[in-house]
């Protein structure tokens, strides 16, 4: 069995939940995520690397939302995770398309953040080697139910500076996003709703939903799963425009 095939086993999922909690704490304290420190604390190093791959670009949330510095050790830690579990380059299934866009975003942000302070808005790197057409991963927006589930799976792209074709595609469909979010809340699919809340907050100027009320509703109703709380924390920062 290759390391990649083992991603998603319970130990990786547990480690990913722990890392999400770690990032959430960092966001709360206004400090960097200390990914390397997290890996040091993992009993099983490979599981820790798998967690970094699963949490992906969200390990950069403190940098992107609060301007925290990215430490060299953390750059190396994320790079190690990609060495252990190489990025998806030629996606075929829908799941692989999702992973490919997450990987594309994470590696792109890693490169940019490792090079220095965040560029000013609108000066992000040119888009190169994208994993394909956004419609391949999102599907048609007319089918907003399925479309919004894919958008939720790509919630780690709802970060300041993580722009690109998927972000542009989602920005072009504010009503589909709002409908999918409302549907998730009504179905009490809180995990999906929290992921979509990030997009709603990111695109708050064009989406016909109040991100602050949405995040608060989810905070009060959705329990205390670390992954979900991280999505809500990111959404809260995005709603404030930070």
């Amino acid at each position, binding site marked *: 069995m290759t390391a990649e095939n083992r991603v998603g086993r319970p130990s990786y999922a547990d480690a990913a939940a722990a890392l999400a909690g770690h990032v959430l704490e960092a966001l709360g304290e206004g400090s960097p995520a200390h990914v390397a420190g997290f890996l040091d604390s993992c009993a099983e190093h490979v599981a820790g690397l798998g967690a970094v791959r699963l949490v992906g670009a969200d390990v950069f949330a403190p940098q992107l939302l609060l301007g925290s510095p990215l430490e060299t050790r953390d750059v190396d830690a994320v790079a190690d995770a990609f060495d252990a579990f190489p990025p998806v380059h030629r996606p075929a299934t829908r799941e692989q398309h999702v992973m490919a866009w997450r990987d594309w975003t994470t590696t792109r942000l890693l490169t940019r953040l490792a090079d220095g302070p965040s560029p000013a808005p609108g000066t992000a790197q040119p888009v190169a080697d994208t994993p394909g057409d956004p419609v391949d991963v999102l599907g048609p927006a007319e089918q907003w139910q399925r479309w919004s589930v894919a958008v939720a799976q790509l919630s780690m792209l709802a970060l300041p500076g993580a722009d690109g074709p998927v972000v542009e595609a989602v920005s072009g469909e504010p009503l589909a996003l*709002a409908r999918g979010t409302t549907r998730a809340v009504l179905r009490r699919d809180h995990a999906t709703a929290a992921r979509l809340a990030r997009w709603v907050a990111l695109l708050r100027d064009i989406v016909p939903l109040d991100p602050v009320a949405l995040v608060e*509703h989810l905070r009060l109703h959705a329990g205390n799963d670390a992954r979900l709380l991280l999505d809500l924390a990111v959404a809260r920062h995005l709603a404030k425009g930070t």
Partner: protein
Amino acid sequence: MAVDPVAGTAHEVAARAITWLHANRALGAFADNATADLDDPNSVYKPLGEAALAASLVLREGVTGGTQLRQARELLDFCWDELRRGDLLYERQLRHTMLTDPLECYAPFARAGRRHHALEEVLAHTSAVDAITELVPNRRLAVANGHRVVGIPRDDDWDALTRATWLGSTPAPWAIDWFTAYCATHTVFHLTDWGARPHGLPEHVADYLAAWLPVWVDVWAEACQWDLVGELLIVGACLPEPRVDAAEWEAFAAVQHADGLVPRDGEPVAEDPSERFRDHQHTAVVATVAGTVALSRLLGSDA
């Protein structure tokens, strides 16, 4: 100009539903001589008014075939006879001055030309002195529309009545539950007089519904709440820009039985005819109204 194929679906649903209501109408009769003091107004009395409403709208729109128009007339007259050609409503209004249900029940009969002069005199008087019991806001709109349909002049502040409803305040679209969704549908029914006055909806309410109806239909269809889904389909058909979505209508039509029964929800349908009628008559009314108004709006918008 070609008519949207979903018009055929809407027509079929309505035609089957009224055929079922008509065929089973005797099951909706009073068990004995009903008086103005109804022990349980929701068991027979209210459903008679709802069947009459469906029939009156089939007749008002006149878009279904000759068979359905005959069924609608016969169904309306059956209900009217059960209410002793309005005497029961008249006696009930005299006995219980503050009740609004005689007016609400009477409106579809009046719309279809079944008039009761003495009842209208009492209704005009109770209206003049505002002898109207306190009601939830969407029900208050039902009374306002009842007065409008019967032709009793009032100076109701429709904007204020609308603002008092859940829908009128256009809350966050997830701040809704099954019961509140029914409140919202009825707000639309009365503001638009069941699709006859689409512009009776304030513009911001129409925009709000256009945005969120698809979500509500989706979640309640997933929960197999077909009665509510049917009501939401009526709402779509009542919008200034009618929403008659083919996929939503196909899903609704797919649950209709061959004899025209539309199950109210996903629970098993009883074998016993009386039980079947009691459980599912409301949904047949909803399906008749939904199909009729949708078809009429589609034909109207293509004209």
